[in-house]
Structures are given as C-alpha cells and as structure tokens.
C-alpha cells in the first residue's frame, strides 16, 4: 500500500508531538499559561544529549538527559514564572517568551551557531522493514512508548494523591491552599512531568534527524501547541488526539509528492485557524463558565 509508510511515519511523529503537547496542556491547565519556552526545552534536551553522548556512553547519557531536562524545566518555572504568580497573566506570558529566546540564545552561544549532529542511538535508530515499508525502529517504538507513558500519566492523575491535588489546584488555588496543598510544589510537579515527557519526545524525534540548531524546537513545539489547542487546551486526551491527527495528516499530505511536502507545515496552521474560528475551546476544551 502506497500510503502505509506515510501513515506509519505519521503515527510516530504524532506520538512525539503528543509527548510535547502534554507539557503545554498540563501547564495551561494549572497556570492558564502558554509556556512558550516548552519547545525550546525540548530542543535543549536534544542538545544536552549531543554534548553528553560525546564523553559518556549512551546508556548513561540517556537517563542524564532526562534528569537535566527535568531540572531545566523546574528551574525555569521557579525563576521565571513563580515570582509572577500574582502578576497579570500577560506578564507571565511575556516572561515565557523571554525564556524561549534566552534558551535559544544560550544554545546559539554554546553551539556557535553550527548545526550539531545528533548521535545515532543503536537499535532505536536501526532500519527495519515493517509490512514492506522501510523505516527506522523508532517509528515502532514511539507509539508504544507514548502509549505507556500516557497510561502512566493518566493513572497518576486519576488515582494518586498528588494527581488529585493537581486536579484541585488546576481549578481553584485558594481552596486548594485551604486543604493544606502546597500550590508551588504541585506546579513544580507539573513542570517536571512536562519536561520529562518532552525529553523522551526529544530523543525519539531527533533520532529521525541528523542535526540540531537552536531553533530546532520551534516547529515541533508549535505543532504540539496546535495539537493542544485542537484537543482543547487543558485536556490531556485532547492533546494526544490532536497530536496524532496532526502527525498523520501532515505525513499523508507529504505522500502527494514533493510539491505537497511544503504544504504539510501550512496544513497545521490552517487547522489552527479553522479551530479558533469554528470551535475555540477545541475538542474537549472546558467551557468558560466553571472558573469561580
């Protein structure tokens, strides 16, 4: 079947977008903040991988990438967003844009503006033959790993005490504090989870690319953001569905030939405009009424 490789690639990219999109949607859910720096943290995870995989073995650098990316997400929240907790939301947005440029500029400084080669991860980057389609093993690993991580996340949110606290804080800060919940700790946990998933997504995503530049996070970040908006920002299932839909669509469009490949990015943004016009709250977005 002619479309099969494209659909497979789409599912894989969709999973990677989903892992990024969850970070956008969770942070929005709890802080009503669009974390513009999230795509750059995703890029930073890739760069960290590049610099660690030089001196260290892959099996050491992979977990270290996760830890350092989580730390980066945590620090960004504490330094750039937490002091603005009582400030107007617009100030926090601007701070987020600032962090985004800061991360890109630090990356530019460190890399000297040169494209850095992403290491090939053995086994994961191997070429395999899937139902007659030639692809990398990461194509198969991504959707499986994404599904496992999402299942774990859903369990955490639905079944654990910290998950319950996250749901409470995302609705009502003041009453959550009355229950004895430490708001800042819960917000930090949200950033930690988002950055962790972005780091995993980054290793999977860049396995398909040869090099990273400081703006490498922009496009996947933007697409994951559109996925989150499409699904209804704040909703985790919405973000996941949106991500797979965008990943598959843009790859199926590419099957039309080289002329269409250019159009595949535009598709995402046309989709964004259509949602914002037709259904601004997205697929599963919350209605405006329930904020006290």
């Amino acid at each position: 079947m002619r479309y099969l490789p494209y659909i497979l690639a789409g599912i894989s990219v969709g999973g990677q977008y989903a892992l990024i999109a969850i970070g956008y949607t969770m942070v929005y859910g709890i802080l009503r903040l669009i974390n513009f720096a999230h795509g750059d943290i995703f890029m930073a995870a890739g760069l960290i991988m590049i610099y660690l995989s030089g001196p260290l073995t892959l099996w050491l650098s992979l977990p270290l990438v996760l830890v350092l990316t989580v730390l980066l997400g945590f620090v960004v929240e504490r330094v750039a967003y937490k002091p603005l907790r009582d400030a107007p939301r617009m100030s926090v947005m601007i701070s987020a844009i600032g962090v985004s440029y800061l991360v890109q500029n630090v990356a530019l400084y460190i890399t000297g503006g040169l494209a850095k080669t992403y290491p090939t991860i053995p086994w994961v980057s191997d070429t395999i033959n899937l139902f007659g389609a030639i692809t990398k093993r990461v194509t198969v690993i991504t959707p499986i790993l994404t599904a496992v991580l999402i299942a774990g996340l859903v369990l955490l949110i639905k079944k654990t005490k910290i998950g319950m606290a996250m749901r409470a804080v995302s609705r009502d800060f003041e009453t959550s504090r009355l229950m004895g919940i430490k708001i800042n700790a819960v917000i930090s946990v949200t950033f930690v989870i988002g950055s962790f998933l972005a780091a995993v997504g980054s290793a999977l995503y860049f396995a398909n690319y040869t090099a990273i530049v400081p703006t490498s996070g922009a496009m996947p970040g933007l697409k994951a953001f559109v996925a989150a908006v499409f699904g209804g920002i704040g909703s985790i299932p919405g973000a996941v569905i949106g991500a797979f839909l965008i990943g598959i669509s843009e790859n199926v469009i590419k099957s039309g030939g080289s002329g269409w490949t250019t159009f595949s990015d535009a598709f995402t943004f046309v989709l964004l405009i259509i949602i914002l016009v037709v259904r601004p709250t997205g697929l599963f977005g919350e209605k405006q009424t329930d904020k006290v």
Partner: protein
Amino acid sequence: MLKIRDLKVNYGAIEAVKGISFDVPEGKIVTLIGANGAGKSTVLKAVSGLVKPKSGSVSFMDEDITSKDAALIVGRGITLVPEGRRIFSDLTVLENLKIGAFLRRDSLTEDLNWVFQLFPRLKERSWQHGGTLSGGEQQMLAVARALMSRPRLMMMDEPSLGLAPLIVRDIFDIIREINQRGVTILLIEQNANMALGAADLAYVMETGRITKSGPGSELLRDPAVKAAYLGS
C-alpha cells in the same frame, strides 16, 4: 483558643479590616455578624493564612500563627468552610472529602463514616462529581470536607447563603452537633437571627471594626442590633 489582636488587613489601598480584636473560647459557638463588606470574610482569610495581615496578631492555642503558611494552619487544626462553598466541581464527592484530609496520613474510615452519618445524602452520591450537586448538597459537602481535616476550630463563612429555610435549619442543627463533638465554631452569618440564636458569644462588625459583643441571646434582644440586622 483563638486570639485576634489589633488585626489590620489591606487589599492594596483598601483597608478591609481596620484593627479588630476578639477571642474565640474553646468549645463554644462564636458568631461574627455584620453588613456586606464589613470585612468578615477577610478576617477568616487572614486567620487561615490566605491573606497576609498588614499588622496585628493571630494566635491559636497560645501559638503565634500570624502570616503563617495556610498548610501549617490547617495542620494546627483550623479549617475554613469558605464563602460560596468552593467545592471542587470535577472531583467526585468522595475525592472532595479525601482532599479535605490532604495533610493526614492515618486512616480516614472513621471520619468518612461520621460525615456520611451527618450527611447521608453525600454517601448516596459519593461517586458523583461535586459540580453536579445541588446548592444545599454542596454546602453539606463543604462542611464535610472541612471536617475531614479533624479540625479543633471550624470557621464557617455564611453557610446559609442561598439556601432554603428548611435546609438552613438542618445546617444549624448539624453545626450544633459538630460543636457537641468538641469542635469549636466561628460562624459568619448574614442570617443574624439563626446565628445569634445558636451562638454562645457574638460579635458585631461594622466597616472593619468590632462595635458590639455579648452572648448571642443578649444581642438578639439589643434594639440597635435588631434594627440593623434583624429587620425589625
């Protein structure tokens, strides 16, 4: 048990509480009545640690808790049933109760049994989302949620707001029952009649200050209080 001394709270330039002092003795039902905007809710928020006072002090069981973290204050045994109930609408009834006990690590079974016995309706609906309850049921849930922290002092901000007279009576019966179990009550009410009837001790608050105090039954007969708060 609770001692408030010369408490002042500002919101920006607005002086919401202009230096009030009062005591809540252990084991009693104490009420604070006053017109809209008098600053009653602000006093409770300051005690709970939700707003930081500008000056003055709050002490509980001889410990200074002024400007302490809200979580610490809950841990000391002070709970607030907030104005407007503030149920977590997309948590289930049971989850709302569990989150009331957020800081506790011991078994909740006994307390759950007690609140379900106080409010059998909540048991029937324990799997329903908080937001789907009626106003009266939400108020019951707010009280039950506060009890789950095992408070020594329960502060209630206008629990009768927007409820039918029959349900208000139920709520007041339950307040007395909770008090008999050893929980001290600090109650804010617009419904001055009910509140003064139930209170051992009452304070009247006007624009940020306490202007009168005495046993509930005494204020109930006070002509000035009658004219201002009892509509007669």
